[in-house]
């Protein structure tokens, strides 16, 4: 457990720092963005992005923060982190030849895998909460405000989306010994999904529809999570984790 924690700590801190730098820069840029928002709207090539800017124009800084923190930073960087933290969990051990050593200790496989899953899941999701918690303080610097509770609810939603990606990578990790092709495959899928999100005709086929600006604006407006989205997301992660446990119990070094 201690070794697992240590191996995840530095990458998780780097990921959190990157998120913090991105949201800090975005918030400090807000006054300039607000002043020129109509110009940006005209310059943007995609209809879907133009609609986002339109939403910011109508609702103000909250939509801008949701776009920057959740839709942009957490979706892109978070997905990459989810892939990075998941695919090496078991496949990394097999790849470096330490899987047998890991499995041979007097610890149950269920416990081994759950420990690793939890540590990785925390590494993916905690930075989302931690950096979102700093947003109200950063907004004070530019004379704006936003409720912490709304940001935390959005963080829960975002984390559930990232957990599905993480759980998928984790599940694949239990059956393969080559983490790199799996990681590249998942990252390629992510880029593809992000690309089709921008195309109006295909946007509904993108998994980024599960965590786009409309979702976060709805959470802010209603003050609660959407059970019809969050429920299936949590269920998908639980199903993938259960599958991972089943596969891991049959895993051969």
């Amino acid at each position, binding site marked *: 457990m201690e070794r697992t924690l240590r191996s995840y700590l530095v990458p998780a801190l780097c990921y959190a720092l990157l998120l913090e730098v991105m949201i800090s820069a975005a918030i400090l840029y807000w006054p300039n963005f607000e002043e020129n928002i109509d110009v940006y709207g005209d310059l943007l090539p995609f209809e879907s992005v133009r609609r986002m800017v339109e939403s910011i124009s109508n609702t103000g800084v909250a939509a801008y923060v949701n776009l920057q923190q959740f839709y942009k930073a957490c979706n892109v960087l978070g997905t990459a982190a989810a892939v990075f933290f998941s695919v090496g969990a078991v496949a990394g051990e097999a790849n470096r*030849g*330490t899987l047998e050593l890991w499995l*041979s*200790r*007097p610890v149950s496989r269920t416990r081994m895998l759950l420990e690793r899953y939890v540590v990785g899941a925390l590494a993916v999701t905690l930075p989302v909460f931690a950096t979102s918690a700093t947003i109200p303080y950063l907004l004070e610097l530019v004379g704006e405000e936003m409720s912490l509770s709304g940001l935390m609810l959005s963080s829960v939603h975002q984390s559930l989306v990232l957990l599905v990606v993480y759980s998928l990578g984790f599940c694949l990790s239990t059956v393969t010994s080559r983490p790199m092709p799996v990681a590249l495959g998942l990252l390629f899928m992510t880029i593809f999904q992000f690309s089709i999100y921008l195309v109006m005709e295909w946007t509904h086929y993108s998994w980024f529809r599960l965590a786009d600006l409309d979702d976060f604006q709805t959470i802010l407006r209603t003050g609660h999570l959407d059970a019809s989205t969050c429920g299936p997301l949590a269920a998908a992660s639980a199903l993938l984790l259960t599958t991972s446990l089943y596969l891991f*119990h049959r895993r051969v070094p």
Partner: protein
Amino acid sequence: MSQPPIIRIRGLSRCFGTTQALSPVDLDIAPGEIVGLIGPNGSGKSTLLRCLTGVVRKDAGDIMIDGEELTGDGVNIRRRVSYSPGEVNTYGELTGTGHLTWLLRGRDQATHARAHGVAEELGLPMRRKVRTYSHGMKRQLLFAAAIAPEVRVRLLDEITEGLDPAMRARILDKLRADADAGCAVLLSSHHFGEVDRVCDRLVFIGEGKKLSEESPETIAARARGLATFEYADAKTALKAHEILSAEGVDADPRDARLLVRLGDGDPQAALALLLSRSDLPAPTSVIYGRLPLADLYQELYGREAC
């Protein structure tokens, strides 16, 4: 075996795809007994040990160790035995101390203290990162973790592999002392000569099957009935074979080597016969009494070792 077995294996089998890694294997080991699993690479030794600890799931069969039946992922067995894997891949970023602590997770503090004592006794630099260790030092680290737990069964895969003769002797002596105190040890090796001196019994395994069980004494006696004459090339070995066959000596040419079956256990007569021939170069070496496992295998079981 006078005492009831502490390790009892019945009908243990395991397939990997279409490969039968273990055909139904039966084996009993008593407390205080050291049993050597001998076989070439890929013969099924490691699979057998992995199945015993639950690291690899068995397809069929029953495994009872120290009164506990192997169930589920085998954690109930792993708590009752100590196991050292055959592979020596380690976490290079950890120090020797850190790695030993990691290996002994789930064991009590007394075990940790004993393991560190053994590691220091073996002269391992425990503050250094494991990535700076040699192959033999990593093997010793795994041994320290395997010998420390106060358990009644130790399962050791290739524990002496890569060690120099002095260190190998120290480790085998420790195992002998451990067995004398009542611990059952099942250790594997593909080098017959490396472990035979401490084993009470040898189990020969090949292609996933248990071929036979013998004592080191009977094996040594059989080995003494064989000699290998090595020549510079296969043609010369073939000529030597013709000469010996003409004199009624039982021999088999194998490439540049000639395996000679000695009726009286003395290679001198056959050697004298070959040396008397001026048209035949002298053998480059004669191995007698301690045959390579491959030759012994071929001789004992009529099959090629890998």
